[in-house]
């Protein structure tokens, strides 16, 4: 019997990585708290409102998706739908190929990680560069992001400096400004030569078709400024009903994600370049990606699709802090990933990720910080129940069998006997302990002495006394 995979991963984790993750996420949590509640004392009611808006959108997704499509077409964009990862990659490839494009810039998009677009395009001979600094470093290292907002939270600057040196971006120098300047110089050339730029979208307004994209580095704008073709990959859950909702979402997103009142750059893009505009892509393609979302929508965990990818839940999560994002073996780490990854995997691959919902003490901190008020612990519990019903082996690694305990807990006579007997023998009855096997507990901690049934005895005597006051 082995411990849960995530626990093993955390145990083996390099100390430097753990310190980076722990420090980075704790700082993120603290900044969020200060800025969010400093600016918006009623933040908790705003979180609830944002949650309701997103939930409403999801419940009428068919309608809003159609509306968004119509608006975008009216605005001159082309709209495509991709059912799964393979079809999304194929559609991007075809769009690029038909236009003779080989050089591409891409700003941060999590859905492109899901569909493994970089790998696909590289295999097909395209030259794609990530323009978000964190993602760029991940790309240079052939690594994976370990956080949805801070992809390199697991790296420190000396590692980054080494990467830059190795990739010919200058001699070793770990001064952050130098690193940024070198990346900028490298990127500028790419911006000028790339003919297409790929982005994601943080939100899409069904009312106007506006895509809302936020960045802190302006990299998405740079990418689009030089490109002829704009391809936006958008998960179908990114919709909001109207432009007005964007203000609420943006107010919450920046503060929850990075403790900023607003991200540095916020773009609203409703279509390709208009005749009177002096620059901008001539063509705009929006690919709405399903990749497991409709199945998630049909499940009893659909609330997770409200997520606006702020990363606050992973920052605050004590399990994420100890284990890092890579422990979750999927694109989305932390509490978000523990719910979303098994669901997006689809029923065929659910079992593979069935241990993720177990990686939580159910402390509820994630729900408390979530800007769209997703009841993450409830969803984790529903998924645990599902993993149990479907007998997913990964969920059972090292998990105590609770059947004997449950038998005892519904047979009061046996329960009492077990308490008393153990008390007399001065042992801990193993079947009694819901968190057994005992050795697992005592490997880390001492166990208090067994006092089974003592209170019952006291209470019975007290009752006697009260009934016959002498």
């Amino acid at each position, binding site marked *: 019997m082995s*411990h*849960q995979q*995530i*626990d093993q991963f*955390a*145990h083996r984790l390099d100390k430097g990585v753990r310190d980076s993750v722990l420090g980075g996420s*704790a700082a993120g949590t603290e900044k969020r708290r200060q800025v969010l509640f400093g600016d918006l004392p009623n933040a908790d009611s705003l979180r609830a409102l944002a949650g309701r808006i997103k939930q409403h959108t999801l419940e009428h997704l068919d309608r809003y998706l159609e509306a968004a499509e119509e608006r975008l077409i009216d605005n001159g964009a082309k709209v495509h739908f991709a059912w799964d990862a393979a079809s999304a990659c194929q559609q991007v490839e075809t769009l690029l190929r038909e236009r003779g494009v080989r050089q591409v810039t891409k700003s941060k998009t999590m859905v492109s990680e899901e569909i493994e677009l970089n790998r696909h395009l590289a295999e097909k001979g395209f030259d794609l560069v990530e323009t978000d600094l964190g993602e760029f470093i991940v790309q240079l290292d052939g690594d994976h992001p370990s956080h949805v907002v801070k992809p390199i939270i697991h790296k420190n600057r000396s590692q980054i400096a080494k990467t830059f040196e190795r990739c010919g971006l200058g001699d070793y120098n770990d001064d952050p400004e130098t690193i940024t300047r070198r990346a900028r110089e490298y990127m500028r050339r790419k911006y000028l030569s790339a003919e297409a730029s790929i982005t994601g979208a943080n939100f899409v307004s069904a009312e106007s078709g506006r895509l809302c994209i936020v960045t802190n580095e302006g990299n998405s704008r740079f990418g689009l400024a030089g490109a002829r073709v704009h391809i936006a990959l958008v998960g179908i859950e990114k919709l909001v009903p109207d432009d007005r909702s964007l203000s609420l979402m943006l107010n919450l997103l920046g503060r929850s994600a990075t403790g900023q009142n607003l991200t540095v750059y916020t773009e609203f893009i409703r279509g390709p370049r208009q005749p009177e505009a002096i620059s901008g892509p001539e063509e705009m393609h929006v690919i709405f990606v399903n990749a497991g979302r409709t199945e998630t929508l049909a499940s009893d965990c659909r609330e997770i699709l409200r997520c606006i990818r702020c990363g606050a839940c992973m920052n*605050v999560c*004590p*399990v994420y802090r*100890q284990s890092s994002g890579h422990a979750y073996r999927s694109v989305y780490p932390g509490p978000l990933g523990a719910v979303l990854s098994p669901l997006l995997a689809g029923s065929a691959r659910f079992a593979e990720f069935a241990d993720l919902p*177990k*990686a*939580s*003490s*159910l*402390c*509820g*901190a994630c729900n*408390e910080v979530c800007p769209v008020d997703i009841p993450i612990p*409830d969803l984790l*519990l*529903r998924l*645990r129940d599902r993993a*149990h019903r479907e007998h997913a082996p990964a*969920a059972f*690694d*090292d*998990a*105590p069998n*609770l*059947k004997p*305990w*449950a038998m005892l*807990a*519904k047979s*009061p006579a046996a*329960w009492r006997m077990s308490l008393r007997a153990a008390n007399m023998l001065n042992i801990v009855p193993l079947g*009694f*302990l*819901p*968190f057994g*096997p005992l050795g*697992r*507990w005592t*490997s*880390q*901690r*001492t*166990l*208090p002495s*067994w*006092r*089974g*049934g003592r*209170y*019952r005895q*006291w*209470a019975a005597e*007290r009752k006697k006394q009260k009934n016959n006051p002498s």
Partner: protein
Amino acid sequence: MMTCLCDAFFDDVARATHEVLESLGIEVIVPESQTCCGQPAFNGGDWASARQVIRHTLNVFQGDCPIIVPSGSCAAMSFHGALLAHEKETDLPQVQAFGARTWEICDFLRNGLGIESWEGRLDARVAIHSSCHSRGTGTPEAIRTLVGSIAGVTLLDFTQPEQCCGFGGTFSVTFPHISGSMGRLKIDSVRATHPDLLVSGDMSCLMHLNGLAEKQGSPLPVKHAIQVLRDARVTPVTVQ
């Protein structure tokens, strides 16, 4: 409801609950057939077993008296978890009614009975760990107010109070390393304030934290909030 942990290990916590309630003129009934709230199976993902235990508990606690529990976690199981486990079951209304009668003891004293301050004396520097399952309930504020109002008590603020202690039921044994690290972080931040007492509304957190601390060689002075309240005074205040 005495909780399975107090039934097995912490009889004095159940007794303190009993004594405090009686001192306020409340009749305390202890149904013999009670066992557990069902949380271990529920959190472990075995909802079918959990429902059996919940139904047993429902049966044992029939009637309409308030059900008082010396644990924020078991209380939350009764008014939240049990509902979730029964969301597709026909007896959901009974489970809801049961949940609506269930109170964590300090929440009951503060918000059920309206007690605003606690008489008595305790000369101690006290750190309070709010258990995670009492998030969003009346319990954390109730414990701070009541314990804080005892003459002689100095409440201490430690860093990152919102961080979980790492117990989490079966989590503590299936994720021993993460659970242990979480607990040691909590112990460090608590110890940094040099408390005379670490107080909580949940013995599970305290059992885990003290178990870790003892393993490190220096136990933590832990007490349940209701023990602190009982020990601070013997004579009751009048209830409004």
